[in-house]
């Protein structure tokens, strides 16, 4: 998973403020949090930064499919064990007769479900990590045996 520092190394490091942020480091953090787009950095689109732009697009590609909460599921690594489904505190609160007691989810307000042997994210807005007042809950990633779930 790419870090803010790696992204910063690929910015022009001009601190020109054209993106609306005070520094390139702040832009790197905003880019990782998906609050800014690569195109917001206009100097980066100049021909002399072509190599950096290409590399930046490459490192940003794996996190393109992240949800609003930054959740990425690597389908190829998932065992479909459902540990995350049962451990997720929101799933437990919203689905006390289903995923809370180890069964398949019975409520449509759950965040994580297992379909076709792989975990899927359904309601990212219910996640504790959603919105400005987010809690950095990590129970789904901590209970994954294969590191198939990551947060950006």
């Amino acid at each position, binding site marked *: 998973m790419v870090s803010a520092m790696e992204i910063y190394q690929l910015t022009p490091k001009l601190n020109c403020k054209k993106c609306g942020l005070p520094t390139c480091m702040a832009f790197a953090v905003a880019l990782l949090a998906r609050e800014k787009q690569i195109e917001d950095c206009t100097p980066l689109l100049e021909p002399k930064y072509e190599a950096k732009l290409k590399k930046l697009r490459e490192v940003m590609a794996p996190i393109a499919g992240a949800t609003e909460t930054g959740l990425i599921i690597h389908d190829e690594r998932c*065992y479909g064990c459902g540990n995350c489904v049962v451990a997720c505190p929101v799933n437990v609160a919203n689905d006390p007769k289903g995923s809370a007691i180890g069964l*398949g989810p019975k409520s449509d307000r759950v965040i994580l479900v297992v379909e076709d042997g792989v975990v899927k994210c359904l309601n990212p807005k219910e996640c504790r990590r959603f919105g400005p007042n987010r809690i950095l809950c990590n129970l789904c990633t901590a209970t994954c045996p294969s590191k198939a779930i990551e947060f950006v």
Partner: protein
Amino acid sequence: MAVCTGCSLLCDDIEVSIDGRRITKTKNLCRKGFGRYRSLSSDRSVPKVDGKQVGIDAAISRAAEMLRDAKRPLLFGWSCSTLEAQRKGIELAKRTKAIIDDTSSICQGEIVEMVIRGEIPTCTLDDVRNYGDTLIFWGCDPSSSHPRHMSRFSYFPRGEKLQRGHEEDRTAFLIDIRASPTAKILSGNFVQIPPGGDADLIDAMLAVLDGKIPRVRDKKAMIAMMNTLKKADTGVIFPGLGLAYSLRGRMDRLKALVDRLNEYTKYNVIPMVGHYNMRGFNQLLFDETGFINRVSFADGIDHGPMYSVVEASKSCDLAMVVGSDPISSLPAGIAKALARVPMITLDPHRTLTTELSRVVIPTALSGIEAGGSALRMDGVRIGLDPIVKSEYPSDEEALSMILGAI
């Protein structure tokens, strides 16, 4: 709701959408179970006699003929068949005076036998979910072998008396020779032992319980672990193949530990059975003969290691394999010995065993195309309902036809 026959957890909360014979969407199936469902339309076997495709009736009558002529047949497999099919299998073994054995003789047989005989206490997986606050996974990797074990029954779910689940109410230890995927979840309570070091670890655990200093590198961690085990309300040990192989012939060590722990609090054992109905076959044969596997009906009821698939494959003159692939899974020497014997195979899929068999009888995929019932790893009976129609008979029907034709 459908039942998954991918492993011995027999998950009965599966939702499946079907379009004709095609599975379009499944919910709650782990990757292993999904593979089982997806196999519905891949690599299915066809009726064959001597390598040539024939009708199912011709294959069955040839199989019956071979069984009638055999002097010392071996009937092997059974762990992936329903209880009803297994019952027919035992009847067939009696009728043909055959040796009957299942995969437990090269798997968890010794531990399952102790559980069935009542030598060590056991409980159901529902008891584990509701009351099991201290768990030991020993020589197993449930994340890989039984993916939904920890999420559905043992570690993560909230139970009747354990409302806070794994977060506060449950403690699980993992004892294994390698840092398996399960070790990533239980990293704080992972005890790594050298291969074959299980008996030494049991000695160290018993030493702590006797108030002695254990002979292990990290004495403090061992004493802390034993203190946690002693404080449990309901403890459960899940022995896997690692422990079964390591303690082969020395299962009294495990029994000694369980007995000693039971002096402090309640401890149960649930073996991590692999195939979905191995426990069922063991129970049926035990009820019938008093032994769980390795039985010969040649002269009354006889039991012994010489009737295990490993030994019997060298002395039998015909092998009938039901729902198993011994040629792939057994060591090369034994597989070669078995391959020299004429084989009759009943299997829904093409396997190395079906490829080397004289007679192949395709059967319906139990739990998906054929109904019946099976025993979960903890001995609870689960009913299976078919969700798709099959053009081939179930194991039970095929065995009934063979019995009728002999």
